[in-house]
């Protein structure tokens, strides 16, 4: 256990979460209208579709999987107690990762090759894209070469994350892991750290109220019984 490991797994998480909370609130208060994904869809949409859709579907699916393993470890282990179910879960998660990887590659390609998209791409965008690429690639490497993550996450990552919440970081769960798993964890904390300074903030302002707002009444000013086409 080196001081470097302590910084990466014992201190970086607190710095990242503190920065995330403080600067997200600060940016919302001081530059509320900068909370956006800064859509570049109008500039180019053909390649964009094959980046945007797979990336978001893939990453949301995989993130929800990580959240489920953290919140419901017993249920995940119970599901995995049948090998067929374990394999289905792992292949599905791997598929989500591959989907996100294909998406981020298309996003990279588009932003690099399309002059209009390139000109609106900031240095922070490139950093975040590179980190996301590393994050997805290391996740896929972990899934393929250090299986079965959905099970061992509950035994290794869960107690580590709980120890962080208890302000008693037990980094000895993480330090013996293979380098690719450690890279995955460090990239994750770095993304949390950079979150409030990048266009990732749009995650916080997706139109969630659509799920619980009151229904809207729509009035039509023509006879709806008539077919137009």
């Amino acid at each position, binding site marked *: 256990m080196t001081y470097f490991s302590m910084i990466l797994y014992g201190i970086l998480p*607190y710095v990242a979460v503190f920065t995330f909370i403080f600067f997200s609130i600060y940016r919302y208060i001081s530059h509320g209208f900068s909370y956006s994904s800064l859509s570049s869809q109008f500039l180019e949409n*053909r390649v964009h579709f094959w980046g945007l859709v*797979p990336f978001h579907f893939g990453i949301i699916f995989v993130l929800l999987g990580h959240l489920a393993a953290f919140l419901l470890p017993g249920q995940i*282990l119970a599901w995995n107690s049948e090998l067929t179910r374990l394999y289905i879960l792992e292949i599905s998660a791997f*598929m989500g990762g591959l*989907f996100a990887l294909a998406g981020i590659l298309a996003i990279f390609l588009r932003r690099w090759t399309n002059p209009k998209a390139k000109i609106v791409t900031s240095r922070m965008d490139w950093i975040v894209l590179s980190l996301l690429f590393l994050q997805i690639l290391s996740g896929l490497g972990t899934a393929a*070469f250090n299986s079965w993550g959905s099970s061992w996450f509950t035994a290794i990552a869960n107690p580590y994350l709980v120890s962080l919440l208890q302000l*008693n970081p037990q980094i000895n769960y993480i330090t013996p*892991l293979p380098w690719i798993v450690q890279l995955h964890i460090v990239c994750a904390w770095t993304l949390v750290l950079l979150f409030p300074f990048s266009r990732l903030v749009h995650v916080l302002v997706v139109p969630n109220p659509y799920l619980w707002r009151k229904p809207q009444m729509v009035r039509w000013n023509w006879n709806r019984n*008539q077919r137009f086409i």
Partner: protein
Amino acid sequence: MNLKIGLFCLAALGISVVFSQTDPGQYFKANCKVCHTIGGGRLVGPDLKGVEERKDRPWLVQWIMDPAGVLASGDAYAAKLLREANGAAMTPAPGINETLAGQLLDYIKTQSVSGAAVADSYVPPTFTTDDIIAGKNLFLGKKKLANGAAPCVSCHNINSMFGLGGGKLGHNLTGAYKKLGEVRGLTNWLKLPPVPTMNPIFSKRPLTETEIISLTAFLKNEAETASAPTLASIANFILYGALATLLLFVLIGGIWNRRFMAVRKPMVSAGKYFIKSTK
């Protein structure tokens, strides 16, 4: 603020670790006993009775502190120890320092005088078919481990498994029975596996005596009966994942295949039809 709390907690943790491990007797029981006895015979590692008669203290201190480094230096005696342990390398001792290593050697020296030779009196348990089946169920996770640890298959593979096999985070356990000192060595080792990845887990969620017996029975049977792995499971896993991804791409291509259709044109046609039909 959070950073300060985090730093304080880290410092507190470090201090507590150092203080809790300074008693060499306690330290030996917690960290060394799973692989070594003092006068009780060989387990995974050698019997440490009179160890300083076999090798000098500076070498032993260096070995305790950095076994991997000594092995990597090409030391002949370290290589001999590794061969005798069937390739099971000495694991790094947690929180070790030069003073503690010296204290451990003092403790071993004291115990070597009083250490009783119990190796000859050890009678290995006899395993039944039920033990093997119970061990297999525990390994695969079909039966939950009593103290809530994740099943072996989460991280380990064995050659007799079909499909995509077991986990690859840890070693393949097909040869673990022989490598870890057969019945006596393995049952002792499983009480608190000294592997850095497993130690934090099983120090809080240890295996029960019954589970250790069942798993040992299963791994013994595995070592005696299993053949070479039947499938290249990592390649298959990647292949299945890639095929599923391809299918998903076809699916989204199908769902959104009209996405580039113009918006204005159909609206104008609809409007014209509307105007005509209302005249």
